[in-house]
């Protein structure tokens, strides 16, 4: 255990969720509730063309007929969709600032508090950041340099204005609006998010990243991300999330669509640290996210990595549709639940093309009174000759009031495809604990060390900047629940 982790543990024991602050900023919000008027309002605010509004309204009419999916092992009161603000923007955002100097200093300060100093990161890390604050994309750094390479990295609102042909072609092509009720909801009211297009043969030289934050009370955040990697290109994309501490539950229903054409590769990493609620399970974010990638071309690859530590409820299944021959899908996940958190997360790998491969590594850690479920589906369709899947999901239980569940669905319709699945559930190994204690670590340090080791296989998949942060997050999430 290095001194850095100890220091972080120490500082967090006083203030466990450090991102729980609220930024006092003038917000512009229409009335609560969901109806056609609010959708028209959003569309108007975003200055969207007619076809986009029609698209939204179509999705809304589908949503009205749909019920929430019920398969998850989650318990929560019914969501009142009429008691949510669907749009919230810092005032004066009708016109987008051209560069950072025009952005409200208070906002910049917020992001500094969150640990993503735009200016600094711009220079030091070489990371291009798009920041989404409630419903509006605040600033996109490093735009110019990306433009030189032909890379488009902007908010989705901007993309609708500037690149309508791409949006028309790809938006909703991986996650149709009528897929399930949360995707329909998002399609109807999505406010902002990121759009990335990597042209043919370009390897994006830096990691692109987005930071999402819910600030205003009773606001839902519905962001929409669309990433297209053209033939032979590569991109690595990072996503981070936080929200202030509140007693109410807030809704977050995002849609993320990835499209990898021939020989392209997309790597998507998430560190999700929405406010998880307090020790008694009060408050916290309801996180209903649909993420899906389409390996459309031959030899394409999509890789999802996620570290899920926040949210009162996590409902998230980043999946891959392996359509192109020889395409590869990967899913690495660490999900930690504490107190009254509930997580039902996993993936879905659909093998359509020949020689497609997928790999799933999932690590679940339950503490306190939380429930942690892995739910994954692997299916081989008739034409998926020689397809291959390997799945490993391990769960660790700390304390006897929590639950760890594994629910895999395995479906094979091809007799040349091979699937392997293994899972195990256990508590922390007493021998390992004893060994660490013997060498002078406290009980808590020892547990933290062992858990970090347990997650290593996934954490090492994260890009450098995130790996350090994720390791700290893991330690913090364990705080106060052991011993």
């Amino acid at each position, binding site marked *: 255990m290095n001194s850095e982790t100890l220091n972080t543990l120490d500082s967090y024991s006083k203030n466990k969720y450090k991102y729980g602050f609220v930024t006092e900023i003038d917000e512009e919000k229409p009335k609560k509730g969901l109806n056609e008027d609010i959708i028209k309002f959003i569309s108007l605010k975003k200055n969207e063309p007619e076809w986009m509004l029609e698209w939204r309204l179509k999705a809304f009419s589908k949503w009205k007929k749909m019920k929430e999916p019920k398969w998850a092992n989650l318990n929560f009161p019914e969501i009142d969709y009429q008691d949510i603000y669907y749009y919230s923007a810092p005032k004066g955002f009708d016109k987008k600032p051209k560069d950072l100097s025009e952005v409200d200093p208070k906002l910049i300060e917020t992001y500094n508090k969150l640990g993503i100093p735009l200016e600094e990161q711009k220079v030091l890390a070489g990371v291009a950041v798009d920041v989404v604050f409630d419903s509006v994309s605040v600033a996109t750094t490093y735009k110019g340099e990306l433009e030189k390479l032909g890379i488009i990295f902007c908010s989705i609102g901007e993309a609708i204005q500037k690149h309508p042909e791409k949006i028309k072609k790809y938006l909703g092509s991986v996650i149709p609006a009528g897929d399930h009720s949360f995707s329909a909801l998002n399609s109807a009211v999505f406010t902002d998010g990121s759009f990335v297009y990597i042209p043919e043969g370009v390897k994006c030289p830096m990691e692109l990243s987005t930071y999402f934050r819910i600030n205003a009370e009773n606001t839902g955040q519905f962001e929409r991300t669309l990433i297209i990697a053209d033939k032979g290109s590569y991109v690595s994309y990072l996503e981070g999330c936080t929200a202030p501490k509140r007693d109410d539950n807030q809704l977050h229903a995002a849609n993320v669509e990835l499209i990898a054409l021939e020989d392209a590769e997309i790597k998507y990493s998430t560190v999700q640290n929405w406010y998880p609620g307090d020790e008694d399970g009060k408050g916290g974010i309801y996180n209903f996210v649909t993420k899906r990638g389409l390996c459309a071309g031959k030899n394409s690859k999509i890789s999802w990595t996620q570290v899920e530590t926040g949210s009162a409820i996590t409902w998230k299944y980043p999946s891959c549709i392996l359509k192109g021959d020889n395409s590869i899908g990967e899913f690495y996940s660490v999900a930690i639940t504490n107190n009254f958190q509930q997580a039902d997360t996993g993936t879905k790998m659909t093998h359509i093309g020949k020689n497609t491969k997928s790999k799933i590594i999932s690590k679940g850690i339950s503490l306190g009174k939380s429930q942690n479920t892995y739910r994954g589906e692997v299916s081989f369709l008739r034409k998926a000759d020689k397809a291959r899947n390997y799945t490993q999901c391990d769960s660790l239980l700390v304390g006897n009031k929590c639950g760890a569940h594994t629910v895999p669905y395995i479906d094979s319709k091809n007799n040349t495809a091979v699937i392997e699945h293994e*899972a195990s559930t256990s508590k922390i190994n007493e021998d390992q604990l004893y060994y660490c204690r013997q060498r002078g670590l406290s009980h808590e340090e020892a547990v933290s060390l062992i858990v970090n080791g347990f997650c290593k296989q996934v954490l090492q998949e994260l890009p450098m900047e995130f790996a350090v942060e994720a390791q700290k997050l893991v330690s913090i999430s364990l705080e106060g629940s052991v011993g």
Partner: protein
Amino acid sequence: MNIKDNYLKNRKNIFFSLNKDIQNHREKLINIFENDSFDRKNNESLKNINLKNFIDFNYKYLIPEETTVINNNQENNYSIVSVNGQCSSFKDDKIEITKISDEDYNDFSENNTIEKNDHFVNLNSLFLNSGFKIIIKKNNNIKIKISNIVTDDDLTIFQKNNIICEEGSSLNLIEEYENKNNATSNILNVIKLEKNSQLYHYLIQDNSPNFNLIITSHSSCKKNSTYNQKVYNFSEGYVRNFHYSELIETNSETNLQGIFFLKNNNTSNNKTFVKHLAEDCKSNQVYKGILNDRSKATYFSNTQVDQVAQKTEGYQLSKGILLSDNASYFSKPELKIYADDVKCNHGSTIGPIDENAIFYLRSRGMSKIAATKILISSFINEELSSIDNEQMSEIIQKKLVRYLSKVK
């Protein structure tokens, strides 16, 4: 004919239909059928099945004419022939067999623990027309063989058996289902194991294509008891094996094992469900399937560990071999764990026969078919060699050879 009409028309032939409580219960069940939308997505018991055949059926039942025989040819060795689900009563100082019709209705109504959402169990409760109860008395070591025979075509048998192993007893039970008729048998076994008792339960299923067999069993194990079940499904007709097991007292153990061999258009649905409700219990679920032609199979397995069930060991394994392009296999091995000091795992694989192994055998001069057959036999060898009953082992080997002869 729909369920309600069927029930009203045949009510007087169905057991316990005069009892008020049971009547009320059955009316509720009819309501379930009338109001259910049969949503396949959320009901495991419906996957891969043409439910219409089982719901719109013509009820027909014949009370068997000849009294069935129970032979005590050797010491502690009994054989029972159950005709249309019934057998005559028998009693000695070691075992006691009674017709279910002579039983108290309380014995009948006691199946609260079984999943309510299962339409086949509900059908069984509605149309119950046969069954028996076996009690193995204290500290006896008994072997029983039951041959299940159906006499006529188009019969619909709804049978419920209670098996009780009293303290310290041990039972070796072989059940054979070999029917050539065009009939449907829906059987519910309720098994209770008292302290220190043991039950080895073998089920051999080998029916003709037009015979539908639906077996559901529910076992509960008390302290230090063991329930071992082995299912061998060679049937050409539809078979459903749903087996639930509860470990209710400490140090009990359950092993649910099954192998199915499918070909042609056949379908088989399998489920094992183990609930750990006490400390220091062990469970093991192993299912293996071989699928040829256009056959389809599903296997659901579920291990649930209650908060109090510390020191649990629970294992699951499911393996499937697809021999043809058109076969399909769906498996869902599920773990639900609420206790922390447990060792639970599951493994699941589906795939073709290993090509390298075939290559190895062929390079030693074997034909492709011979190599395939050897590899299939070795795939299930572990399960077959663990049968400690010689007679059983011979029967299974013969059936295996018959199945392999059709493999191309």
